[in-house]
């Protein structure tokens, strides 16, 4: 698996220029928006997609056939992709958290429980993004998976729309009118925010594990 990790690190490093631009944008946003949570969410999300990006590189020029002749099993290939995705996401999360903390110390902002909850909440995409993306890319290939993602997004939006119609009409309208922040605050009144963070983390980790299982099943059936 070491060889696969070296390969993926090198592939991720290929995007150093893009990652650098994104880091600069995040830092600019940090100082202009004065929202330290933004940079953590942004960097965690971007870095957690690196693993699935390496799948696309592996696929290029029919490369998967050659990669599958290397001395490791198909299961190990998938396990490495999930591991690499989480490591990349965690790297982004750690760097951005340190940057956010420095920003808060410099501006003398308090590091309170709300900030820590937000920081922890941004661990969710680190598990959720590879959990959603990798099995779809493995199943449909990089090019077709983009269409599949749009379909999935459409389905999620449709389900969201139907669910909102099923709930209390007044609350839904009022929540949308007040915007996302108030809406979040509205939930907080009923469910403790820490509980939301904990449940989200557990659910995302479970999605990650189930997805890993699915990924192994998909690759075991693939022919190259």
């Amino acid at each position, binding site marked *: 698996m*070491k*060889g*696969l*990790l*070296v*390969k993926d690190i*090198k*592939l991720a490093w*290929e995007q150093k220029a893009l990652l650098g631009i994104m880091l600069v944008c995040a830092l600019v946003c940090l100082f202009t928006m004065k929202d330290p949570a933004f940079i953590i969410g942004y960097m965690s999300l971007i870095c957690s997609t690196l693993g699935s990006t390496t799948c696309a*590189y*592996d696929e*290029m*020029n*029919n*490369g*998967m*056939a*050659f*990669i*599958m*002749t*290397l*001395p*490791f099993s198909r299961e190990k290939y998938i396990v490495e992709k999930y591991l690499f995705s989480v490591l990349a996401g965690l790297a982004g999360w750690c760097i951005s958290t340190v940057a956010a903390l420095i920003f808060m110390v410099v501006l003398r902002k308090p590091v309170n429980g709300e900030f820590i909850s937000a920081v922890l909440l941004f661990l969710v995409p680190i598990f959720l993004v590879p959990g959603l993306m990798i099995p779809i890319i493995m199943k449909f290939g990089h090019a077709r998976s983009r269409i599949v993602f749009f379909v999935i997004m459409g389905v999620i939006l449709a389900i969201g729309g139907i669910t909102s119609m099923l709930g209390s009409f007044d609350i839904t309208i009022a929540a949308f009118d007040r915007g996302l922040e108030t809406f979040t605050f509205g939930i907080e009144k009923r469910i403790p925010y820490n509980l939301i963070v904990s449940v989200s983390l557990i659910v995302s980790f479970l999605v990650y594990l189930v997805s890993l299982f699915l990924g192994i099943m998909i690759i075991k059936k693939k*022919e*190259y």
Partner: protein
Amino acid sequence: MIRIDGLKKEYKDFTLDVSLEFESGTINGIVGTNGAGKSTLFKSILGLIFYKEGSIEINGKNVKDFKYEDKEKIGCVMTESFFSETFTVKDIASIMNATYKTFDKDKFFKKCEKYKLPTDKRIKEFSNGMKAKLKIITALSYDTDLLILDEPTVGLDVIARDDILDEIREYMEADENRTVLISSHISSDIEKLCDTTFMIHNGKIVFHDDTDRLLCEYAALKLDEETFEKIDKSHIKAYRKEKYGYECLTDARDYYVENYPSIVVEKMSVDEMMMIIIKGERS
């Protein structure tokens, strides 16, 4: 030794159905037209595709049970498949070093230097010849028992092809128990390099023999219709109709030279044999 027993791989419009053996210490050439089944055969050996019937054993072990140690002993070159072309030679050395316990970094870089492969340039900037050489150098830079080469010389000029064939010869000279399987469209490569030649057509092995025997004892008999009707056909493997009569492929050149001194007997290349077998009738 590689033993393929009753291997059957079915697609919608094509079925590979072969049983064959490759002896240790030999270079085996697989020739056939596009879509004949060469790559399917190699992919089956490499575990890239699945098959419901048959078995493939390498040195007595089923390839389906192969572990890291077994796969590490196989070197592979595929025509249109390699590491991402965004990598440089140095990147590939790092990956191979982390992947194979026996990867010889010094040997790898020396070979790159010999063939003037720039180590800091991305592979996508390489010419076809450079890419082909890099693939073979990579496969030869760790300790293997078996080398599987799917069209390693396709699209290359004579010099580049010769370099690659030299590398394969050198690989075999280093250890007499090694085995090479090589497929090629270019029959002269097979004639120059291989101990045994297998011809595959429509998913089946249509004939195989020692390459030396193919070149010495196989021949084309050019016969008019009358001679064709009378001649002893027990050593004729295939024939096809021509303007002058029949062109026949025989595996007993001397027999016909001695017994039918008036007929035209000509030496054939593997390509010409393939033409008669594929386009003609088999006896």
